[in-house]
């Protein structure tokens, strides 16, 4: 019955000084007590964070492009910076100029993932919602439906599956070995790695930050020199910087691969 135990980083024995040892972060740190419940529906902190990030994306882009002007002023500058980054670095290399219709989808995807990742280092929030598997999973499900659906619609189901399974230029005698592997890779392994890449990066980053934050606190209570706790704190700061890079990179990679899979659905990538 009591499957929801942790409120943040609470463990069964977290009173230092009673010989409990270092409260190492575990999978329990990713489960949260619900903020409120309606019947069996529990609304917890990651859901709140996802809602907040959606609101931020909506409000920011609405404010930036409410009254667009040729010479941008104010927030429009920032909004144009973001949109042009997505268009020139993500969309144009994969989809080309005629893929500009995908810009709203790809930029929403990029900024949604990036802002959710950034919540991992924002004070008070301090949790990247993308480190719960359901959020990258649903994004990946959307992308999978898109690239399979568009491919089958534009190229016909059998021809699209053939394009997924058979790379051009492969000699005929290797096809019985290569085609099943390629088919499995493009249809099943792609969504798996796409979701797990984003999820595991955020999980590992959050756990790293937790390890050093808890160590900073734990070493203070051990009656040893202050310099050990200080070293842990400095390393925590350095890792936060690393997390900044990784968060942006993972959002970028997810969007780039989405654009690449969609371009493969329009025409054969080989």
């Amino acid at each position, binding site marked *: 019955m009591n499957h929801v135990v942790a*409120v943040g980083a609470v463990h069964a024995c977290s009173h230092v000084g009673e010989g409990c040892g270092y409260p190492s972060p575990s999978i329990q740190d990713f489960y949260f007590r619900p903020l409120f419940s309606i019947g069996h529906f529990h609304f917890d902190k990651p859901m709140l964070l996802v809602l907040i990030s959606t609101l931020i994306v909506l409000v920011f882009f609405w404010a930036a492009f409410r009254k667009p002007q040729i010479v941008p002023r104010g927030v429009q500058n920032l909004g144009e910076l973001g949109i042009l980054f997505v268009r020139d670095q993500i969309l144009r290399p994969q989809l080309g100029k005629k893929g500009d219709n995908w810009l709203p989808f790809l930029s929403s995807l990029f900024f949604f993932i990036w802002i959710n990742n950034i919540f991992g280092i924002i004070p008070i929030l301090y949790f990247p919602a993308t480190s719960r598997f359901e959020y990258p999973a649903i994004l990946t499900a959307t992308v999978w439906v898109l690239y399979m659906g568009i491919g089958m619609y534009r190229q016909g189901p059998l021809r699209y599956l053939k394009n997924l399974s058979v790379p051009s230029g492969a000699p005929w005698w290797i096809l019985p070995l290569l085609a099943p592997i390629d088919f499995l890779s493009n249809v099943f392994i792609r969504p798996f790695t796409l979701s*797990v*890449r984003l999820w595991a990066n955020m999980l*590992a980053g959050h756990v790293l930050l937790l390890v050093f934050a808890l160590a900073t606190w734990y070493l203070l209570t051990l009656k040893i020199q202050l310099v050990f706790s200080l070293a842990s704190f400095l390393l925590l700061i350095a890792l936060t910087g690393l997390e900044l890079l990784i968060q942006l990179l993972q959002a970028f*990679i997810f969007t780039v691969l989405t654009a690449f899979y969609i371009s493969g659905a329009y025409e054969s990538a080989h």
Partner: protein
Amino acid sequence: MQLAMHLHHLLYVAAGARHAQAAVAATAPGTPGNPITYHILNLGALAYGLAAIGPGVGIGIIFGKFIESIARQPEAQGRLQGFLWIGFALTEALALIGIAVFYFLK
């Protein structure tokens, strides 16, 4: 009410954990009186350690080749930097799938 219930449960678990610690210290592990066994080998950590070898080599190769190619042709840096980050993230993914497995096996 929920909060009080959860706090009560937490205190109960905390008390139970200390009780269990005392019981473990009193009897030998593995005997019928003490079903808790000490794990010498943490399978998850071993699995992740082995899984990190490949991506470690791979990431080293990617960045090494990037540095080498910039040394040969410095003006190609802008174009190659995109491939650098894509290659890094794709290789890192395998190491991170390993760390996700670590949490399942823990």
